[in-house]
């Protein structure tokens, strides 16, 4: 799963060079940092204090999303979550009671994007969960989400609140 440290370092140097080269332009430049698209959050139903943010992350050199945050005026906390299907041989200690066929949510430390690949944060898979929403997420609203990558560092993207995926 994990690349060797040397490869990782080399990639980090290349990524760093790419980052500096693209200084002065925005995220949509062709630098080697992650390319983040289709950032959206679902309208949150009344009576719930939870929200979910989705996006697609592509990376030429590979990277790892390690942390997420939003302004406290939006939600108290943000976490990376993954939905998984519980199976009989699951090693998840906390959800081992869930029979196979049930979907369970678990917090994950990071999301790895392989070099040249992309990962979709999408319903039924990964999502950024917002906890303790200050106010419901209303259709059309926009807010910033700050993503921390192990190589590219912090990148802030804007999520649009929608009913369904763009």
């Amino acid at each position: 799963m994990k690349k060797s440290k040397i490869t990782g370092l080399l990639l980090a140097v290349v990524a760093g060079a790419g980052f500096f080269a693209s200084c002065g332009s925005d995220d949509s430049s062709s630098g080697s940092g992650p390319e983040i698209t289709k950032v959206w959050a679902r309208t949150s139903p009344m009576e719930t204090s939870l929200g979910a943010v989705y996006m697609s992350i592509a990376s030429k050199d590979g990277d790892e999303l390690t942390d997420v945050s939003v302004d406290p005026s939006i939600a108290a906390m943000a976490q990376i979550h993954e939905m998984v299907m519980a199976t009989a041989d699951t090693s998840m200690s906390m959800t081992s009671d869930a029979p196979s066929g049930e979907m369970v949510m678990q917090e994950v430390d990071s999301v790895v994007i392989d070099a040249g690949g992309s990962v979709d944060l999408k319903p039924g898979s990964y999502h950024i969960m917002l906890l303790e929403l200050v106010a419901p997420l209303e259709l059309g609203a926009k807010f910033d989400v700050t993503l921390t990558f192990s190589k590219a560092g912090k990148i802030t993207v804007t999520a649009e609140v929608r009913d369904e995926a763009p």
Partner: protein
Amino acid sequence: MAGVVLPMLMILASCRSDASSMRGIVRDEPLQVGAVTLTDVTAEGEFADHGDLFTMRAQAGELLVMYFGYTNCPDLCPTTLAAVRTATKNLGDDGAKVDLAMATVDLERDTPEVLNGYLSSFSDHFHALHASSQDELEAAENAFLASSTVTKDATGKIEVGHSATAYVIDDTGSVLVEWPFGIDNKAMTNDLKILLEQISSNN
């Protein structure tokens, strides 16, 4: 001989394509849930005055979309319920013939008030179902071959596992199609249109 076989194959092929125009799962022997009852706590919308017990049947000539979920569910439940909402909107006037029912699997946290507020985000004609006991919930789940698990860890953090299928039921309590998680609103619209046409042509 080939002249006979070929048309027969074509007939078979066309039957098949007819059946497969439904996008959800259609069982050869549909689940029968018309005898299942759950405590109804609906306090808003069209069915605010409904009785205390809900039977798993659509209104005469209509359809019912049934889901087992919980309101502290940030991903699966709102994804499916939002798709149902869009699908019923896509039906135009016929959308009024599709009611929504959700039974919470999180009996402790989902109070009737919370459940009503949550469901009113997705439909004007919904049934908020809150079993009065775990046994009542499980009996209902069993009829749908559904299941759920609520666990609390040492820190008090609650984790919920649940099967995430939505069920479309007719007025006899027959489950006409099952939508596993991930079916989008277009597929739901497709299925609901076909089923409503079938119902109106049968009447």
